């Protein structure tokens, strides 16, 4: 007899998002009922609580909404890569998403900079990142 379990952090839309990321595609969750997009993916639409949330592909262009240049060294995977850049990026065709800005000189970044998505493997999972245009 097998028993189904539900991972509390990886509901179907999250798994789907990560599977697309593994293929180098940036997806944003969007509600089919109220048409609002959100981030990160939730089990239901945070605006109307509809279950009809689907992933829509973004073209990956956006602007730098905010960023932080991290010098702390205690994160287990990033701590030895300081300084690294955490960022919020407002997609031209979607919501504001969180990712890192890579391939950049942190000192040259400014809020409002144009960025394009790229993908990097973190602990064997390909994840969306952004780099300056």
């Amino acid at each position, binding site marked *: 007899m097998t028993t189904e379990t539900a991972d509390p*952090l*990886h509901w179907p839309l*999250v798994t789907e998002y990560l599977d697309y990321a593994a293929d180098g595609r940036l997806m944003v969750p969007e509600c089919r009922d109220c048409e*609002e*997009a*959100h*981030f*990160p993916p939730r089990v239901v639409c*945070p*605006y109307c609580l509809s279950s009809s949330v689907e992933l829509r592909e973004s073209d990956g262009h956006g602007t730098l*909404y*905010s*960023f*932080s*240049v*991290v*010098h*702390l060294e*205690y*994160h*287990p*995977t*990033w*701590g030895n*890569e300081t*300084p*690294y850049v*955490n*960022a*919020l990026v*407002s997609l031209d065709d979607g*919501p*504001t*998403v*969180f*990712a*890192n800005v890579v391939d950049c000189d*942190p000192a040259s970044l400014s*809020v*409002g900079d144009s960025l394009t998505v790229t993908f990097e493997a*973190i*602990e064997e*999972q390909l*994840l969306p990142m952004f780099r300056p245009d």
Partner: protein
Amino acid sequence: MVSTSTASIIGWGEAYATDDDPKAPLELAGEAIRETLDRAGVEKDEVEGFLTGWAPMADHRPRYNNIMSSHFNLTPSFSTTVTFHSAGVISMFKYAAMAVTMGIADPVLCVQSDAAASFDDPSGGMAGTDVDPVFEDPYGLVYPSAMALIARRQMAEFGVTREQMAEVAVAAREWGMDHPHATFGDAGPLTVQEVLDAPPVAEPLGLYDCVPWGPAGTGGAFLVTSTENAASYDFDGPRIDILGTGEYSTHEYVSARPSLRTAAVSAPDQLTHTGAQESSRRAYEQAGLGPDDVDVAEVTYLFSNIALLLLEDLGFCEKGQAGEFVENGGIAREGGELAFNTHGGDLTFGQPGVSLWMNTAVECLRQISGEPLGASVSDAEIGLVHGMGSTCACHSTVLLGREGRAR
């Protein structure tokens, strides 16, 4: 007029460990409870309600209210942990007031302790704390970096400068210099330039923009009864009335906040508009008071930029103007407009763990009672206490007033 619809504090206490004399959270809680009950003239067995915030970082056991009440042989008929992040420590004023005014339990003992010196991880186990495990942690987001994302928006939208943020740390050092237990109380004055020159932590935040760990350990407690019942106790010091309370939560992880456009605290940029607007509005309305009535404000903020946001959202200056407010000496100890964090606040008093929020509350009770350990605000009658939790996720405001102060 006294009515059963109001609640009052008739006792409070505080306990401290030092580097040479470390104490566990339960020891600190015990000392604070004993002082509180002594001050209130209340026997231990009279206590009906028992509240605490979340478990101390130095003792991770869950259901800490049960652990503490058992340890001190209390038998509460009303007990829970109030977890609104650490702001729940401030929310205890409201939960206790609800209990005593509804006749559920009276008196209610509220306690919190923690001990930074006894953390099993020097970083306090901060990696992975307060970040989304799937969408933030894999990117190395750490808590100070989340707060730096907010700082960058303040700079972009309001023109806040690093110098203005540094003024928060400079003022905090002035206020905390006479406090015997403040982490940086003996470190001497701080200059803006020293703050700017400190090592970067998560730019734009540097070392002195961020709350340090310390004191070694602290505990605090207060006892709440109905205003009507207060007269039946033989307590020391003035009765302190709970005039108004308010809580508000907008999000959990920082990356969720920008896309939550339907949140009630709605603004073009939500990282720079916090739930403190709503929590304080509710408290002011209930109290029939406004920011100008506040004699002393004790506010947890953890990072210099967040102090600026909260000065605005608690109504002490216009939105977007806090940078200029502090630059012009608004929270300076000498000649400032607002007595702000008179124990030195987060940046000088430090964070002993979850009990920072309790020490912040007790500092307000001390000022209103005229029994400060350090800097003194003469004749403080109305105090505001505000707890900020996590990534500006949770906010809890309470207005306290000395007995006899008209509502």
